[in-house]
């Protein structure tokens, strides 16, 4: 509803009015609003107009009143606070009773429960009826804060300035956040993000709460995450991929596991929108990577209701559940990129989603043969998921750094060869794996039977990214037991 002016005569037209003067930053004001806010409806039915008068901008007033469940009229006044001055306010909260002639019949300054009850009784007397009074809740008495009307107007103006942060606080109060500040999804921004696409088009329902992912809501999440409109096709493709039932986002969204949703981006769109596949490819510093990954997570969290600590039951989570988007460094890779392995053409732009644990860094500056390096990389995954949980059915994702990739290129190793070498390298006798959490396969095997870490070489996903200097690759363990499959979608 658009803001409308209010008059004391109008408020008191039923016989009397109660005006509660407050300010946002005053805790006593908040206490007064909490105590009285739920009574306004019954007062108004009895003929007593009820209004809270903020010495703050209207948007602040509306936000705070909503948070404190104030059910009466919400008014706002700007400097120099002529209304507050007219009532000779010195502090907030002040509760003022006005009679039908517009005259002040009584006031309570600060919070004093018994005095407030008496003032409401006085109002009831004016109308010859009974009025609801607040329950006695601690603190029964509490001094108020200085009214802005009672201090120097220029100082009051300075206090009023929120530095532009109030809108961001509003986002937190609405719950439209992953814990970090977000970009408010105004209609203008969301329309710009949609870029003429049909916002009503549905990509499906987002588990676990099955909120519908209209393109407009996906765009709202992209705005909240800080995306530029140029990134939106990647966000939409990632959302489509994650909502494919084969990905089992439902299980991932509610599990006690840490799993996040890794997005791997391939093809020309990487360079077109500035995705980083070089130095710090898994880290901070690059808006497209961070905001695209964040947009997908906000979709799961907000539209899907997978809020950590609520339906998201993850015991620890991991930082990739804030944002988890890597672009493959196809230009430096000796191998066909991931999307080509998965059946797409090199010139297609593709996103691939994989349920993944946090990255484990693998330092190797000493290997001089591809066999040594392959062995080091492979054994780094030996403890992924759990130390003795062998074999893993779900994919482990390797991000091979360019210097490591160069060693395999120079030796002429294909992806297939490296994958099979790694699969063969990591084996243990079942007898060594029968401790703590392990698999039925290990329990059923002969003690001397060699058990591999992975069920097949295809459980090892190889990608290339990172800076050209430094010999640090990484392995990302799987999301296990979900029947979650890797899913790819072309970027439209």
């Amino acid at each position: 509803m658009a803001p409308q002016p209010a008059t004391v005569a109008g408020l008191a037209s039923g016989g009397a009015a109660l005006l509660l003067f407050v300010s946002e930053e005053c805790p006593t004001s908040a206490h007064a609003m909490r105590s009285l806010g739920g009574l306004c409806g019954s007062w108004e039915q009895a003929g007593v107009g009820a209004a809270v008068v903020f010495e703050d901008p209207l948007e602040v007033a509306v936000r705070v009143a909503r948070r404190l469940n104030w059910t009466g009229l919400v008014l706002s006044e700007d400097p120099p606070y002529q209304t507050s001055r007219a009532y000779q306010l010195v502090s907030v909260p002040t509760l003022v009773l006005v009679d039908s002639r517009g005259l002040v019949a009584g006031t309570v300054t600060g919070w004093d429960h018994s005095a407030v009850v008496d003032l409401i009784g006085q109002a009831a007397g004016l109308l010859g009826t009974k009025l609801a009074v607040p329950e006695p809740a601690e603190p029964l008495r509490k001094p108020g804060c200085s009214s802005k009307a009672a201090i120097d107007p220029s100082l009051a103006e300075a206090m009023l300035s929120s530095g532009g942060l109030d809108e961001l606080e509003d986002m937190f109060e609405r719950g439209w956040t992953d814990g970090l500040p977000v970009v408010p999804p105004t209609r203008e921004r969301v329309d710009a993000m949609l870029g003429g696409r049909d916002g009503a088009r549905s990509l499906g329902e987002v588990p676990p709460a099955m909120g519908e992912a209209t393109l407009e809501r996906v765009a709202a999440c992209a705005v909240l995450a800080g995306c530029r409109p140029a990134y939106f096709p990647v966000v939409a493709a990632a959302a489509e991929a994650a909502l494919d039932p084969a990905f089992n986002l439902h299980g991932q969204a509610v599990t006690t596991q840490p799993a996040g949703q890794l997005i791997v981006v391939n093809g020309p769109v990487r360079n077109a929108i500035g995705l980083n596949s070089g130095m710090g490819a898994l880290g901070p510093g690059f808006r497209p990577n961070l905001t695209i990954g964040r947009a997908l997570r906000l979709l799961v969290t907000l539209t899907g209701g997978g809020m950590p600590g609520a339906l998201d039951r993850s015991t620890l989570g991991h930082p990739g559940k804030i944002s988890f988007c890597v672009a493959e460094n196809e230009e430096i890779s000796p191998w066909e990129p991931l999307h080509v392995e998965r059946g797409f053409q090199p010139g297609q732009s593709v996103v691939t989603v994989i349920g993944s644990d946090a990255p484990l860094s693998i330092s190797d500056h000493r290997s001089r043969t591809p066999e040594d390096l392959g062995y080091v990389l492979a054994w780094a995954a030996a403890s992924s998921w759990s130390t003795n949980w062998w074999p893993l059915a779900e994919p482990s994702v390797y991000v091979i750094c360019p210097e490591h990739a160069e060693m395999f290129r120079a030796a002429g190793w294909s992806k297939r060869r490296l994958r099979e070498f790694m699969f063969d390298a990591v084996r243990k006798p079942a007898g060594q794996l029968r401790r703590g959490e392990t698999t039925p396969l290990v329990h059923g095997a002969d003690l001397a039977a060699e058990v591999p870490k992975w069920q097949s070489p295809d459980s090892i996903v190889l990608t290339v990214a990172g800076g050209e200097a430094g010999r640090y690759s990484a392995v990302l363990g799987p999301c296990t037991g979900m029947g979650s499959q890797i899913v790819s979608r072309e970027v439209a």
Partner: protein
Amino acid sequence: MSARDYVSPFDERVRAAEPLAPRPAGVAGRHVVLLDIRKNRGAEFLDRLQTHLESAGAATSRSAKEIFSKPASPEVIDEVAGRADLVVEALAD
């Protein structure tokens, strides 16, 4: 720009809560389906419960979800609903 002119990321539809089925006074003479979600050791718990239910006079049978991490399929739900007076679903680990 109005402070309230935002596009919500939430699906604001309000869904009516499903009413709870009437609670029986006892299990004797009732058919209880024990639904295994296929999580580790859930079956052990259901085995024990099944013994107790049968000694209390209930008829019992078992059913299972396809996988613990996904909602039960409509086929499983229909099959269980078709023969059960009561259902016990066990979480595990």
